[in-house]
């Protein structure tokens, strides 16, 4: 039941008025003079009894009238579910947690054993359904009263690598309650991990008609060490600059010294003893002087020797791709050697130098095929050979990336090559009132600026004002001149930097933000994905781009089985990484990838839900009344169940009560008339 205007229920407090009045009346005993009491006898008991009965009736009528009126004004409604009321049947849902933490000890065996015992006790006429849940819910059986089917479904559940989510389970229970239209008795067999609760408690609100019974599979708090995360490079271009970091955490554990080792292709490449504080974290840092790994993907693993009761999280997988740096073409004028210097220095300063710069002058570029370069940079080039410009256009339309830096030489032209937007003017700050311009606005969403958005103090003395046209402006100077523009041309990208990369037109190369800007822009233009060295179980991996639709993708799961059917291989754009281990992915482009997948480390925290929180969760089920239908599950439940207002019935009751109250009250008034006369006469 709910109320459309629940605030009117406060009007029921007015029930105190008749109570107060009647109490006053009850104690009111005005003495009435009478000529003689010679013929009267004391009959107090009968008098009080009589009075009480009469007043109780009137009081009850008046109080009830006020309550019913308040109820009527609050516009009550109820959900009409024909099958729910009076059927006497219930749906028993047996939900087994198959999350990663259920691998600890004999948790899953205990859960299965208790669930099997429960199946035998399901009453006649009741149906039961078996669910397995972690990050999602799987229906292991249809609703049935066949005990054998239920037992088989329970026995088939094995612990997985997913993260438990009670929110998903609750959502499934609500769905079952709505579809079955019967009261649901949910038996939860789980280790009741606290970390499986959602951040918002409203997500585990059970709703009416659902009763939750928990069957804990964990015996108590278990100290546990785990490799929480590993920070390793996704690609290694220079084997001499490999750094691997790992964080080891102890959940509810005492301080411990653990041996941490890093393995690559099942070969230990380094180890260290790490002191992990009590219930704390410690970071393991390994710099490999020379990574001895073949080209291509390599299987990496960080292991700890914890000797706790949960060895499943003592290893963390990652993959490293050994690759050669990709060539990038740097076209510059003879006078622009300073730009090359700063650009190359910036690229080499980054931890993973993914590019090798080929520097040429414009006249040398005529015979170069742009397609072999990851990206091409025209650094303040005054003239581009027409053949090269045409080749650049084709290169960009086919998906290539072009970076154009504009300076005094480039401003000679009226138009930016390939970018195809007009150059308005070359702005010299020293000739105007200000001596330099600063960056006034940056688009933090642009990949070039995302991690290097602090351009404070960078002075731009000379910029070329380009009409942006349809281009995206990622940075503007204080005089609103576009500084960084990007335009999609065909499948490729053209990025225009309206100044030079030397320290003549600006002092940008002398600032700390220059290196990340160069590195990120190069990676962005070179289309190097910034994916990590590992993924978490339950996340989705993108299999193809829009351009690659129709081409087959091949995915082998950690057990070496094909993860996709033939149809999925041709159409699926993503795949859920459901198991821990290494996925072997062959993309439509023929590129081979090794994806390392680890269980969510929230599962390593084996702390259980506090008893009061658990009771609170259970209380959100049966017996809880959702007063506000616009919040929580009320809407979802109400979407299928029809809200039915019974306002008119309440008003009819109020009318009947009003008539009854009038009749009874009128009788009291009639009684008082002779008494008043007597009082007047006596006076």
């Amino acid at each position, binding site marked *: 039941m709910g109320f459309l205007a629940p605030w009117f229920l406060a009007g029921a407090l007015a029930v105190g008025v008749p109570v107060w009045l009647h109490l006053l009346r009850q104690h009111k*005993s*005005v*003495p*009435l*003079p*009478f*000529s*003689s*009491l*010679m*013929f*009267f*006898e*004391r*009959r*107090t008991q*009968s*008098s*009080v009894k*009589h*009075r009480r009965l009469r007043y109780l009736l009137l009081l009850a009528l008046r109080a009830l009238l006020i309550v019913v009126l308040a109820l009527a004004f609050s516009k009550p409604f109820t959900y009409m579910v024909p099958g729910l009321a009076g059927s006497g049947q219930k749906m028993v849902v047996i939900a087994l947690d198959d999350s990663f933490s259920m691998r600890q000890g004999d948790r899953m065996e205990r859960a299965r054993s208790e669930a099997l015992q429960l199946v035998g006790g399901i009453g006649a006429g009741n149906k039961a359904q078996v669910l397995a849940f972690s990050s999602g819910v799987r229906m292991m059986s249809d609703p049935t009263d066949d005990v054998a089917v239920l037992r088989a479904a329970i026995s088939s559940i094995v612990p997985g690598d997913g993260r438990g989510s009670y929110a998903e389970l609750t959502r499934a229970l609500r769905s079952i309650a709505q579809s079955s239209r019967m009261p649901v008795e949910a038996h939860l067999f789980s280790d009741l991990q606290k970390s499986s609760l959602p951040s918002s408690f409203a997500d585990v609100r059970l709703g009416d008609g659902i009763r939750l019974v928990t069957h804990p599979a964990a015996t108590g708090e278990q100290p546990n060490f785990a490799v929480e995360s590993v920070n390793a490079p996704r690609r290694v271009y220079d084997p001499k600059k490999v750094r691997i970091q790992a964080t080891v955490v102890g959940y509810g554990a005492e301080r411990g010294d653990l041996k941490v080792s890093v393995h690559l292709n099942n070969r230990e490449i380094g180890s260290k003893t790490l002191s992990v504080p009590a219930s704390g974290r410690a970071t393991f840092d390994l710099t490999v002087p020379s990574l001895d790994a073949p080209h291509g993907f390599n299987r990496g693993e960080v292991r700890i020797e914890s000797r706790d009761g949960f060895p499943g999280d003592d290893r963390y997988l990652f993959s490293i791709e050994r690759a050669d740096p990709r060539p990038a073409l740097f076209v510059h004028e003879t006078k622009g050697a300073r730009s090359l210097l700063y650009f190359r220095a910036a690229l080499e300063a980054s931890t993973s130098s993914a590019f090798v710069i080929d520097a040429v002058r414009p006249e040398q570029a005529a015979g170069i095929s742009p397609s072999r370069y990851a990206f091409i940079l025209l650094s303040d080039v005054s003239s581009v050979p027409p053949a090269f410009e045409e080749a650049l256009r084709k290169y960009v339309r086919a998906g290539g990336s072009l970076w154009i830096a504009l300076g005094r030489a480039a401003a000679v032209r009226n138009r930016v090559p390939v970018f195809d937007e007009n150059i308005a003017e070359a702005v010299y700050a020293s000739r105007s009132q200000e001596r330099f311009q600063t960056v006034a606005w940056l688009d933090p969403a642009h990949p070039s600026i995302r991690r290097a958005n602090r351009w404070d103090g960078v002075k731009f003395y000379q910029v070329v004002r380009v009409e942006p046209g349809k281009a995206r402006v990622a940075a503007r100077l204080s005089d609103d001149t576009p500084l960084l523009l990007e335009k999609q041309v065909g499948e490729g990208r053209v990025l225009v930097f309206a100044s030079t990369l030397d320290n003549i037109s600006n002092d940008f190369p002398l600032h700390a933000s220059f290196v990340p800007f160069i590195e990120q822009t190069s990676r962005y233009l070179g289309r190097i994905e910034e994916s990590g060295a590992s993924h978490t179980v339950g996340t989705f991996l993108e299999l193809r781009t829009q351009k690659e639709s129709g081409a087959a993708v091949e995915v082998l799961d950690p057990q070496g089985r094909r993860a996709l059917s033939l149809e999925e291989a041709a159409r699926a754009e993503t795949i859920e990484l459901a198991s821990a281990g290494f996925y072997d992915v062959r993309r439509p482009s023929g590129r081979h990838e090794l994806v390392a997948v680890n269980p969510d480390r929230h599962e390593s925290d084996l702390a259980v839900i506090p008893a009061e929180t658990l009771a609170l969760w259970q209380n959100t089920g049966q017996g809880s009344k959702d007063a506000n239908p616009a919040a929580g599950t009320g809407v979802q439940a109400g979407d299928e169940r029809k809200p039915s207002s019974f306002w008119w019935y309440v008003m009819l009751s109020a009318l009947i009560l009003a008539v009854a109250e009038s009749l009874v009250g009128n009788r*009291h008034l009639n*009684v*008082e008339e*002779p*008494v008043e*006369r*007597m009082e*007047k*006469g*006596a006076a």
Partner: protein
Amino acid sequence: MLQRFLDPATLASISGLDLVARTVVDGFVAGLHRSPDFGFSQEFAEYRAYAQGDDLRHVDWNVFARTDRCYLKRFRGETNTQILILLDTSASMGFGSHSVNKLDYARFVSASICYLANSQRDATGLIVFDDEVRNYISPSTRQGQLFRLLHAIEKTELGSHTDFSKPFIHFQEFLRRRGLVVVLSDFYEDPEKIVRAVEPLRYRGNEVILFHLLDPQEIAPQFREPLLLVDMETQTSLEVSPDYGRNEYRTKIQAHIEDLRSKARGAGLDYFLMDTGRPLDEGLREYLGVRQGRL
């Protein structure tokens, strides 16, 4: 006809008692004219044999001359009949469920009797009492007696409780001549005691009439709500239930009335119940009708 049945409430609005009495008496006298025997006293002159000690001035010398016997000539208005009104002013007489309480009603009755008696030249007196004799006006036919009586009646005030025994001993001292005694009271006393107290008046040759004044609410209480009643004389309070008022009380008061009536008649006393809710002249008419029939 307009004045035949006078509502006590209407009479209460009339300021002077003389006017009230005149209104009442003239009303029912006009309605019952040509009734020669109508009246309180034996209205005729008489001759009585001379007795030693009689005043010689009253001897009818003409009769003596013709018959040689001494007779005393008795004129109208000089008969031995006198009317004495005993008005109870105890606190209980102050009760009334409407605009006229019992004392007011008794005043009207008293005034009406005085007026009627005066018009018939009967000597009329008044005794006001509660537990003591509060006022006494000896019966007389002197001029101005009516106004003295009416003034005394008008000035009566409610007293304390009723005690018949004490004042009635004094009454016997006041009553030296045979006559008519009218007792106006609500008689909240044991009928045995009342009759025993009043009875001696009858022994001396007086004709005694008991006017029992009761309010309608006293005869048939209509309250149906539990009430805390306070005795107007003793100030004691009692919570009574409506059921009791409807049933047992009515039975008891009726038994009291009947007991008083029977005991009074057994003692040779006239008893008449006056409901103060009824019109005054109607009550008097009824009583006088009954009395006439008996006479």
